[in-house]
């Protein structure tokens, strides 16, 4: 009984007394302890979690009505503010930060009876595609300990793959849920921009950041989205739900009438041959299930990465300006005047990649360069949105690989920022356009998982989940 059962089955078992929440939490910690060498969690809360689990079990034996995640352990990326422990964002800057409040998404899960058991490693401030930019440690790939788990939500994805919890939460600014899900063989769901509250999630690039689940099945992702999705008065950017429910029950029986667009800008002769075979194999199964397969070109998609690496650092430089060592965060007690205090606190508290992004962001926003870089990037972003809208007039979904590569070796790209940025080439467009996207595993190459990415129109999250559930079933 290594693998976790589907969440709805687990909850039924807990509620019926067939199993206990305590035994689920104990199981989670047995995997956490067994897999320390993978550097997955920054903190964990065993005694607190067991106490909460006991409370759940007592309530159940007393016949009390409990929520939809009663007694289920879960893990969140350490950029979600939580009452328990520290919230570090994987950075020395926030190494000892105790959050004064808790993220809305975390609150909603806890309100349904879920039990927070730990916080997962990430690239510091979520800047990266491998967790190698964490100021603390590199998370290792569950399928090959010499390789990266992907990033920035690498800890969240590795945790689920290593059975440390049946699900986790991550954040996705340019692929940070989907890439690690692809590298660790999980489902990683990036909702439409604004569908899940970001209140209490440490901001990276605010026009791109979304919160989403990493799970073992698409149905589990639907259940979690059903719980965390929707408007929140603490986050003015949240949107109305596109569906009253995101829970799934095999709605789609076949793909007759479903139009699937293959993004030929990604699926072409340049794509790694083995990855291409897995992707084309999945596409041919979609065709034999009744889907109409159409080739789609997004003319500006080759500019999505340059746009991203202007818009993202610009917003990063703004969001990270709040770290001045005064109210919280790393502070340099040796400075004797305020200016040096700011300078030294920031320079010692931020790691390399954060500094790089602050500098690039400051450059593209500075006078003389603003029009050539930032404004131009925003204009090309509009073009991309228009081109995706046109594509979605022809097809219901767009598909391709999640990542251009299999999980790479630790250290392989960490000395070359541009090579690392190229890891995001297939994922950033969904963030720039705001549309929902999911990565799901479609087999292995040399014992390493391959992720299949599906994108859908803005606010078509429910449709995307229904389709993904079908794809999961035929793979």
């Amino acid at each position, binding site marked *: 009984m290594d693998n976790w059962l589907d969440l709805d089955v687990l909850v039924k078992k807990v509620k019926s007394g067939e199993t206990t929440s305590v035994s689920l939490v104990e199981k989670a910690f047995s995997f956490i302890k067994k897999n320390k060498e993978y550097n997955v969690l920054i903190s964990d809360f065993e005694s607190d979690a067991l106490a909460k689990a006991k409370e759940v079990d007592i309530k159940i034996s007393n016949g009390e009505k409990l929520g939809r995640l009663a007694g289920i352990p879960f893990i969140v990326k350490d950029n979600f503010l939580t009452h328990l422990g520290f919230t570090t964002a994987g950075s020395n800057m926030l190494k000892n930060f105790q959050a*004064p409040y808790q993220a809305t998404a975390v609150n909603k899960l806890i309100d349904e009876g879920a039990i927070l058991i730990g916080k997962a490693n990430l690239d510091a401030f979520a800047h990266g595609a491998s967790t190698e930019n964490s100021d603390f440690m590199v998370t290792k790939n569950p399928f090959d300990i010499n390789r990266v788990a992907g990033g920035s939500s690498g800890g969240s994805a590795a945790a689920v793959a290593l059975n440390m919890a049946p699900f986790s939460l991550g954040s996705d600014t340019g692929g940070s849920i989907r890439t690690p899900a692809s590298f660790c063989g999980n489902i990683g769901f990036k909702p439409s*921009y604004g569908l899940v509250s970001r209140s209490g999630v440490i901001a990276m690039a605010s026009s791109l950041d979304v919160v989403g689940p990493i799970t073992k099945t698409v149905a589990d992702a639907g259940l979690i989205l059903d719980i965390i999705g929707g408007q929140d008065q603490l986050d003015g950017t949240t*949107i109305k739900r596109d569906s009253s429910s995101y829970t799934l029950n095999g709605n789609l029986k076949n793909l007759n009438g479903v139009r699937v667009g293959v993004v030929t800008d990604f699926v072409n002769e340049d794509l790694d041959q083995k990855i291409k075979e897995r992707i084309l194999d999945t596409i041919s199964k979609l065709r034999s299930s009744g889907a109409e397969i159409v080739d789609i070109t997004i003319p500006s998609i080759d*500019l999505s990465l340059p746009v991203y690496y202007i818009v993202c650092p610009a917003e990063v430089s703004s969001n990270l*300006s709040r770290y001045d060592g005064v*109210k919280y965060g790393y502070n340099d*007690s040796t400075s004797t005047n305020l200016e040096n205090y700011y300078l030294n606190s920031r320079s010692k508290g931020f790691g390399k990649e954060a500094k790089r992004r602050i500098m690039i962001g400051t450059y593209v926003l500075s006078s003389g360069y603003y029009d050539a870089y930032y404004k131009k990037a925003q204009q090309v972003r509009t073009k991309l949105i228009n081109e995706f809208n046109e594509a979605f007039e022809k097809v219901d979904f767009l598909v391709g690989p999640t990542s251009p590569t299999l999980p790479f070796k630790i250290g392989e790209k960490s000395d070359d920022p541009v090579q690392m*940025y190229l890891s995001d080439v297939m994922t950033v467009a969904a963030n720039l356009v705001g549309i929902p996207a999911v990565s799901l595993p479609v087999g292995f190459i040399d014992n390493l998982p391959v992720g299949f990415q599906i994108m859908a129109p803005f606010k078509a999250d429910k449709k995307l989940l229904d389709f993904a559930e079908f794809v999961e079933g035929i793979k």
Partner: protein
Amino acid sequence: MSNNLSSSDILKLAKLSKLVLSDEEVIEMQKELSQILDFVSKLSEADVKDIKPTDQVTNLTTVLRSDKNIDYGYGLEDLMKNVPNRDNDFIKVPRMLQES
């Protein structure tokens, strides 16, 4: 676009960014930032005539909450516990001006 940043460009950017860099970091940043700018300069080819910039994708405008006091569930002490240097309910910082 030529994207070779000089060391004085880097120092100016660091100043704007409220960062101090070591000599090694300046050299490293010069190389890496120039590479990154080369990479994004592909954008100069794009034709964006008459295209409006996108700031955000939701089309929401001026979202207001109801004008009621919300209990956020935390108080002054929850906020002050992270303050590195405090004097009762005040936050202390080093002096702004150098002593002459």
